[in-house]
């Protein structure tokens, strides 16, 4: 993207002034290198979002923004129902509430190294991963409804999780306002045997070591100590979320004229928040969030079982669980007045600032943890929401590194076996059902997460606390 076309606010913030049909400015958080590497489509898609009815203040792009569907990935936008604001199925995406959670273990790296191969094999055997994998849990329709209503709380109540995890999950593990009746039989059918599965693509379970601390005091508060082992899980709402996205996107595309919406891109399909379709989508999407929260809780339960076999005294504590693809009703100040806004985060993480009332008491003094995944060969990061986030992008931050190369291009460039061998030489064990999948996810196919989080910090979106280095990666 050319900086010359944008208004420079500072070294890390750029603005596209309102033009044409846009109702608000667009704001891009990036340093000059990240901005230069950003697809031109980000600018076009962000301007399209800025033209949607009821959008307030600005359409935002995070430092890892890239070309998405309708909304850019790394896009954040808030809509006011009182001003005819909309909710967009495309603005949430297919993998509803795809997200990341990190668990501390209290184990030392050396303890893990002794049994790393066996641990990798056992995790791979017990965590269903990859295309066509199924979980050990099959849900009938009544249990499916209970899961869609209860989220991680449902999983805990059924014995697949730990009560103390709930406070460390957004929405305390259960998204309010879910309406399972709006989740179609097809969406339910896709999920019937997929609870507790990792999925494929960029989803993973990683055993990592804490490599560097940027803020020792905050790290201590989060249970992070240098040289200790943590586990990070990245996955979402599986087939159920995909089917909800598919069905509502179609209905919103077809019914757009009914709401007087002229869409420059059909993928921007949306409906007024205060419409029957908008309400139905919100009910289904919130049920999809609960599915993702339940899924990550079950995967955590399976992981704890495996670790218990190797380290009977180890206690895996949930540091935090963040969701990326959501639309949430939140309280914000708009022009100094409190308002209820519907904030879309598409490939972006909520990053509540210190003191936010939604945070559990132990996190309130420091802010919300923001978990940033790298690729399977590179660093991941733990950040915290910061005070300036209150004024920046509705308390949001980046979500990952973002791809540098398409999947086919990566598969042509690298062989899976070579990637596995090279990573093993660096002490990183890979287990995956698909070597082509590993090639498509090669570290070189991703951008540098370090540059993204450094920019997020300098732009005042979130601040760095710890850097994590992979040791074992179970790749779907």
């Amino acid at each position, binding site marked *: 993207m050319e900086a010359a076309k944008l208004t420079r606010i500072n070294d890390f913030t750029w603005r596209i002034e309102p033009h044409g049909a846009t109702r608000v400015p667009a704001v891009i958080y990036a340093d000059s290198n990240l901005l230069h590497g950003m697809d031109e489509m980000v600018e076009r898609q962000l301007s399209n979002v800025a033209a949607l009815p009821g959008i307030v203040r600005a359409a935002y792009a995070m430092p890892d923004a890239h070309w998405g*569907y309708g909304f850019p990935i790394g896009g954040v936008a808030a809509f006011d129902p009182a001003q005819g604001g909309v909710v967009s199925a495309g603005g949430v995406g297919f993998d509803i509430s795809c997200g990341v959670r990190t668990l501390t273990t209290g184990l030392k790296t050396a303890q893990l190294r002794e049994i790393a191969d066996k641990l990798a094999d056992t995790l791979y055997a017990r965590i269903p991963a*990859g295309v066509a994998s199924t979980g050990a849990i099959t849900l009938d329709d009544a249990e499916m409804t209970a899961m869609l209503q209860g989220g991680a709380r449902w999983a805990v109540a059924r014995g697949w999780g730990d009560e103390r995890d709930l406070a460390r999950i957004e929405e305390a593990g259960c998204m309010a306002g879910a309406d399972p009746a709006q989740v179609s039989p097809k969406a339910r059918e896709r999920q019937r045997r997929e609870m507790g599965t990792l999925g*494929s693509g960029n989803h993973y379970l990683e055993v990592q070591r804490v490599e560097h601390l940027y803020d020792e005091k905050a790290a201590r508060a989060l249970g992070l100590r240098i040289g200790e082992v943590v586990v990070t899980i990245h996955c979402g709402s599986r*087939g159920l979320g995909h089917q909800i996205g*598919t069905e509502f996107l179609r209905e919103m595309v*077809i019914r757009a004229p009914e709401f007087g919406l002229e869409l420059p*891109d059909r993928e921007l399909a949306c409906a007024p928040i205060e419409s029957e379709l908008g309400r139905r989508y919100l009910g289904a999407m919130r049920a999809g969030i609960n599915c993702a929260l339940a899924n990550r809780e079950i995967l955590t339960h399976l992981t704890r079982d495996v670790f218990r076999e190797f380290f009977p005294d180890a206690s895996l504590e949930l540091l935090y669980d963040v969701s990326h693809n959501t639309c949430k009703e939140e309280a914000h100040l708009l022009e100094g007045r409190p308002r209820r806004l519907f904030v879309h985060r598409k490939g972006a993480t909520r990053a509540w600032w210190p003191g936010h009332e939604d945070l559990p008491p132990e996190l309130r003094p420091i802010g919300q943890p923001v978990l940033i995944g790298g690729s399977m060969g590179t660093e991941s990061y733990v950040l915290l929401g910061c005070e300036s986030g209150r004024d920046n992008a509705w308390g949001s931050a980046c979500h990952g590194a973002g791809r540098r190369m398409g999947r*086919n*291009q990566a598969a042509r460039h690298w062989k899976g076996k070579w990637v596995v061998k090279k990573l093993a030489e660096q002490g990183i064990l890979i287990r995956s*059902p698909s070597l082509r999948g590993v090639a498509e996810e090669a570290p070189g196919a991703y951008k540098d997460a370090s540059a993204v989080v450094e920019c997020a910090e300098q732009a005042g979106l979130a601040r760095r606390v710890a850097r994590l280095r992979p040791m074992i990666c179970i790749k779907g």
Partner: protein
Amino acid sequence: MNPQVTSLSPHWEHFHHGADVGVRGFGRTLEEAFAQAALAVTAVMIPPGEARQKESVRIECDAPDREILLVDFLNAVIFEISTRKLLLGRFDVRISDGVLRAQAWGETAEPGRHEPAVEPKGATFTQLKVEHTPEGWLAQCVIDV
């Protein structure tokens, strides 16, 4: 993007999208182009020729226009992949009065024998195009994976 149709023979290809995969089918008829686009979805996971034709599935959908019909068809294919763990290597498509009826042949994915690379989540409206060119039909969209 303005793809050139270079041959009348039905075929498929993938086209570039930053995070995901574009699927494109070419055919002498609309039906052939749709069938080829569906093969391109299978090719996101495995080479379509590797799917043995051991079982078949029927797909039916209708839509207000040809482009939405393509999205519906590919999403119906993805539903079969997701729920029946099917890898489909052959498609026979019929379209009449906006109604698509198809039969597809393939086999259940077997861990160890197949190594599907990545799971298609849904067909999107991004770069969606169904058009008749002087050389034949083209059907394309981006698949979220």
